[in-house]
């Protein structure tokens, strides 16, 4: 009978199992860098035939301090979210503290057909929206039959 070498790792096993299921449901096999789930900021990715759209849910940042890099098809979003100032008041009590603070970095690999020269990024209501056009040559074309 099979016995795990690390029997306490039942949660890791459950996590792996969950990932396997998700991968099956999501269909396509993930890229080698993949898009890790969870963490700050949360990321949504979508696409149209003309562009790739990335939404990073990154509230409470100074837009000037968000670092966005695109290198060889790999997009990196990094920065730091500072804790809210406490005004130096000694008589305060923190009742709930669930918000993310500290440095963050998320990396995602983009499809091959993007044009790195056409990145457009906008920060609005705490959402960083990055739009990258696909190369014209990669766009679907109707071929005329003469």
């Amino acid at each position, binding site marked *: 009978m099979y016995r795990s070498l690390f029997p306490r790792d039942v949660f890791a096993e459950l996590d792996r199992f969950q990932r396997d299921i998700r991968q099956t449901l999501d269909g396509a096999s993930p890229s080698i860098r993949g898009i890790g789930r969870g963490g700050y900021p949360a*990321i949504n990715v979508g696409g149209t035939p003309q562009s790739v759209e990335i*939404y990073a849910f990154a*509230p409470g940042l100074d837009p000037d301090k968000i670092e966005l890099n695109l290198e060889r098809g790999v997009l990196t979003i990094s920065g730091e979210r500072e804790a809210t100032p406490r005004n130096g*008041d000694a008589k305060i009590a923190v009742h709930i503290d669930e918000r*993310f603070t500290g440095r963050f970095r998320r990396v995602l690999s983009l499809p091959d057909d993007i044009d790195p020269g056409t990145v457009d990024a906008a920060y*609005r*209501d705490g959402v960083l929206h990055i739009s990258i056009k696909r190369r014209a040559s990669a766009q679907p074309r109707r071929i005329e039959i003469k």
Partner: protein
Amino acid sequence: MNHDLTKSQDAQAPKAQARDDVALMPPVEVVEDASGITLYADLPGVSRETLNLRVEADTLTIEGEMALQVPEGMQSSHAEVSIPRYRRAFTLSKELDPDKVTAELKHGVLKLRIPKAEHAQPRKVEIRVH
């Protein structure tokens, strides 16, 4: 047996209704000082127009709809945020003054200030020495 069945059905009915209106629970930070409570909530994608704050009896409810600019015909390929709505409710204690709540929304972070009622402000109690 029959009684139990009806009971569980009754319990399921409101649940099914609520499922159509599911919402994300925004992470918050709640800090109390001598004069009141400050609440910060992460609501990325929510604008001033789509934020709904209300106090009913002693319950404070924060609700917001995300309004993202999505190009026509976009197909989602990866979604960590799959519900375009936030909701969270808090019970206010008696010493807080719900009429004087102030709210600020900046870069998707809501800051609520709920002051304590005048009579609930801390007072230094004099100790008499006989």
